[in-house]
């Protein structure tokens, strides 16, 4: 191995790590606000990538029917809750279950986007509302359950969503057109425009999330919910809404990651799981609570994967996932476990 090869591996690791970083951020966000370990996060990646591929071949992504079905189910559930006398926030319900899906349907059925940026917009509109709808259908009725129960629901949801992905998109994968075909030679290193797009969008999202959480009232409310759910509610923060919002952000981030990686690799209906899992390893490095540590963890996972694929490709996956053991060991030595009762 010479310096050139090492640099190429580092470059590859950074590009892959950027995607894991987005996954890790979404996982930390969802976990800290709702205590859900969101295993199906990766499915949004696959859904978005495959929906984009369908659009580029001029087909209607069948995912639209899934979104409309979920929206209808959600409306029925809310109506049933109202009938039972529960208080229903119709404003947010109409936004997630009617306005956004209607907009997505309008984009796909009437506008039929041809330009790439319109297709991107359509895919984001298609996938983002799935986050809050999934939250309302699967997790909100269990908002007070233990982390373990929520995890079990996540596993079930993951299996269901992978199955639906197979049903909608078939077993064979797809690739999409690159956002940028440009490539440069810098001292023997080939830098593609697509990898710069990945890094740029990731950096942009990280900075945007930083400002959102630090500077906006909604972001601060989300952080407050993450720190102490009961306290936040006493301060008048609608905690159910923060669930909606964190899942919407997670779905949006997942969709963006999917759009970013679809041109560089073939995406299958079940690709999302492993990407999500590697993001999970990165999130664990950050203790499922620290964004900067999760980012660092994602870069570490990316590098580890890249170098182990060069040295011992047969054991790459083993090496990457074994990383979790020393990290957990170190964390268990360094953190005092506090049982937080609500």
């Amino acid at each position, binding site marked *: 191995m010479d310096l050139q090869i090492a640099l190429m591996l580092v470059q590859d690791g950074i590009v892959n790590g950027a995607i894991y970083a987005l996954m890790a951020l979404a996982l930390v966000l969802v976990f800290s606000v709702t205590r859900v370990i969101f295993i199906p996060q990766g499915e949004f990646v696959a859904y978005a990538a495959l929906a984009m591929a369908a659009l580029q071949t001029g087909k209607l992504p069948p995912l639209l029917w899934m979104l409309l079905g979920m929206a209808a189910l959600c409306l029925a559930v809310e109506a049933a809750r109202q009938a039972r006398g529960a208080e229903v926030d119709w404003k947010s319900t109409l936004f997630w279950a009617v306005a956004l899906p209607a907009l997505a349907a309008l984009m796909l059925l009437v506008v039929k986007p041809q330009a790439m940026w319109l297709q991107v917009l359509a895919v984001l509109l298609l996938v983002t509302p799935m986050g809050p709808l999934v939250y309302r259908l699967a997790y909100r009725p269990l908002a007070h359950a233990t982390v373990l129960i929520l995890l079990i629901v996540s596993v079930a949801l993951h299996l269901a969503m992978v199955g639906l992905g*197979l049903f909608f998109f078939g*077993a*064979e994968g797809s690739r999409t057109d690159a956002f940028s075909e440009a490539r440069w030679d810098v001292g023997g290193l080939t830098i593609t425009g697509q990898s710069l797009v990945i890094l740029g969008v990731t950096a942009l999202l990280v900075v945007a999330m930083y400002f959102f959480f630090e500077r906006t009232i909604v972001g601060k409310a989300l952080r407050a919910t993450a720190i102490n759910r009961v306290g936040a509610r006493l301060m008048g923060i609608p905690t159910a809404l923060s669930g909606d919002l964190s899942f919407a952000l997670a779905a949006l981030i997942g969709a963006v990651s999917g759009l970013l990686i679809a041109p560089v690799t073939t995406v299958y209906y079940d690709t999302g799981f492993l990407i999500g899992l590697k993001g999970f390893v990165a999130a664990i490095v950050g203790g499922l609570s620290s964004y900067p540590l999760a980012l660092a963890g994602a870069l570490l996972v990316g590098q580890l994967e890249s*170098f182990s694929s*060069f040295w011992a490709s*047969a054991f790459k996956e083993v090496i990457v996932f074994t990383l979790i053991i020393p990290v957990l060991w170190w964390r268990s030595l360094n953190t005092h476990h506090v049982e937080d009762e609500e």
Partner: protein
Amino acid sequence: MQLKKLALLCAAVVGFSAPAWADVNVGVTVSATGPAASLGIPERNTIALMPREIAGHKINYIVLDDASDTTAAVTNTRKLISENKVDIVLGSTTTPNSLAMIDAVSESKTPMISMAASAAIVEPVDAKKRWVFKTPQNDIMMALAIAEHMAAAGVKTAAYIGFADAYGEGWHREFSKALELKKIKLVANERFARTDTSVTGQVLKIMGAKPDAVLVGGSGTPAALPQKTLKERGYAGKYYQTHGVANADFLRVGGKDLEGTFLPAGPVLVAAQLPVANPVRKSALEYIQVYEGAHGKGSVSTFGGHAWDAGLLLKAAVPVALKNATPGTPEFRAALRDALEGAKDVAGAHGIFNMSATDHLGLDQRARVMVKIENGGWKYQDTK
């Protein structure tokens, strides 16, 4: 009185349905979902096109999905044998599943025809594997075809990159053997996972070894990723793939990066281009016609052909077995096994089957051709 009537009625129903017991029940387990779904789905579709009646006896197909999962394949097999009382089991799609099913079928003395590739499924024919047959070509046949083609093209060193699973391992083993016979040196041996999003590390290592040719040991669309990465990094040698990629989706995903790639395949892939004298041409075209008639033009894949061939073997064996026993009995299952072992000159989509007591595959060199990817399609290569 009421009870008596009911009893009579029951007796009558049982009595009338007695001829139905003579139906031949065929249990099928395929991987219609999970990682092997792209192979399992055309197989399942093909089962639906198989004959409903052989020699005047109705054939019932009971099709179960094992989700590419070994445990599920065994559970399916046991269920088919004990609950559905099947006379024969077809399946499963993958090698691990088929290997695991051998115990279940040999215990109950039920014949089985696997649609998975590995030679280990039927070799050596021992007390258990007496009951097991398979239709896909052995990997060594395909590996030898590649090595011969490489040697003819003047290749001295070759590299291998395959799946990090049984498929990749198996191919590495067979390919090494074949290369040794042809005095070609294997200079790099790398692995990648079906779900990998990047193979840059492996590709850099292969390029460092400077091989004359690279073989990608993968199946379906995931096999396109190493080739795309190699092209991207400017590798200028020869590219080879295995017959596991022979479907239209592979061409779609790989696009122009696949041009000029060689692969061995079952003749069904290029049936229309085969010389008229080729003995497999007619039977292969027949399958294509039936499948595309039901699923549209260009929908056929070589994987469904393996299921079709299992059906043809069944069609050849059932009339022979019926002479000696009635369906649904252990005697019939034994007779069916003997009939399968005695199958001669059965022309299938992938070749001509000649079974024997020591060969439960029965294919010969007629079961493979070399194919080149040209203008986004498969082009038959006359190697003679």
